């Protein structure tokens, strides 16, 4: 039954990947990641049928990591939601350093500007 398990695992993993690629809701993407982890767990269990119980131990580790990840990740999502009132990842791009509709998409120039202008988005800390 191990080849079948690996087959299921591959399909589930790919479904998780496609989910991550096609969704924008942070929580759903999170769930897709959990699905991918589960797919990998299935592989581990399949391999533990072939190579011994260590595979099950890895599954236990994956589960604890997933639990930790869920705790922290959901806390992050709550914090983001409080700030942005949304969990749509389209609107969450602070990693870029400035917001997408900022009229001054360059931090240096942003600092140099003399006074705040009403047209600024106010979402990056230099524009605010």
């Amino acid at each position, binding site marked *: 039954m191990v080849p079948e398990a690996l087959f299921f695992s591959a399909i589930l993993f790919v479904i998780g990947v*496609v989910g991550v690629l096609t969704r924008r809701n942070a929580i759903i993407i999170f769930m897709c990641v959990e699905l991918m982890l589960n797919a990998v767990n299935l592989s581990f269990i399949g391999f533990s049928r072939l190579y011994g119980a260590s595979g099950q131990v890895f599954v236990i580790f994956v589960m604890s990591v997933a639990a930790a*990840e869920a*705790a922290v990740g959901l*806390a992050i999502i709550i914090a983001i*939601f409080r700030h942005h009132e949304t969990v749509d990842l389209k609107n969450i791009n602070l990693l870029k350093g400035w917001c997408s509709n900022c009229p001054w998409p360059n931090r240096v120039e942003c600092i140099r500007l003399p006074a705040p202008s009403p047209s600024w988005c106010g979402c990056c800390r230099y524009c605010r």
Partner: protein
Amino acid sequence: MPNGFVYEFLFYLFGLTAIVSAAIFVTRRNAVAAALWLVNTMFCLAALYIMMDAQFVGAIQVLVYAGAIMVVFLFVVMLLNLGLPPSVADIKSKGARIIALVAGLAMLAELLVLARQKLPAELPWLPRETSVTTPITEPLFRTYLLPFEITSVLLLVAIVGAVVLAKRRS
């Protein structure tokens, strides 16, 4: 070793149910419904684990994933009140979906090619008399003791991190 028609039938049943549930989960617009389909997938996976002689892992799969992690997901969804109404069209455009599907299929093809290797013979099933937790104690508490202990630290860090992140600053 439980083999034969019933066993295989159930194995395929659970596997296919898991896949179908996962597919439905990915396509649901409603976050709560999606989460429930994912729970279903996890149940089926727990059944698969038990059918592959990993009963302990099957039990904690239900306990941890379905009973704890997904409940927390649901909790957050409700806390943020995201499910109703489906205001955010959080599925990307058709073009993006098609490209993602193509990439997914490519990955699936690659994975299946890789999975077609010669596998060694399966190990014999455990005799019913032994406790199901016995076989994983040896690797868990001897071979991988250090990772196990580090996991506890990780969980502690996660707890503290979650509290700090989610705490409302006054």
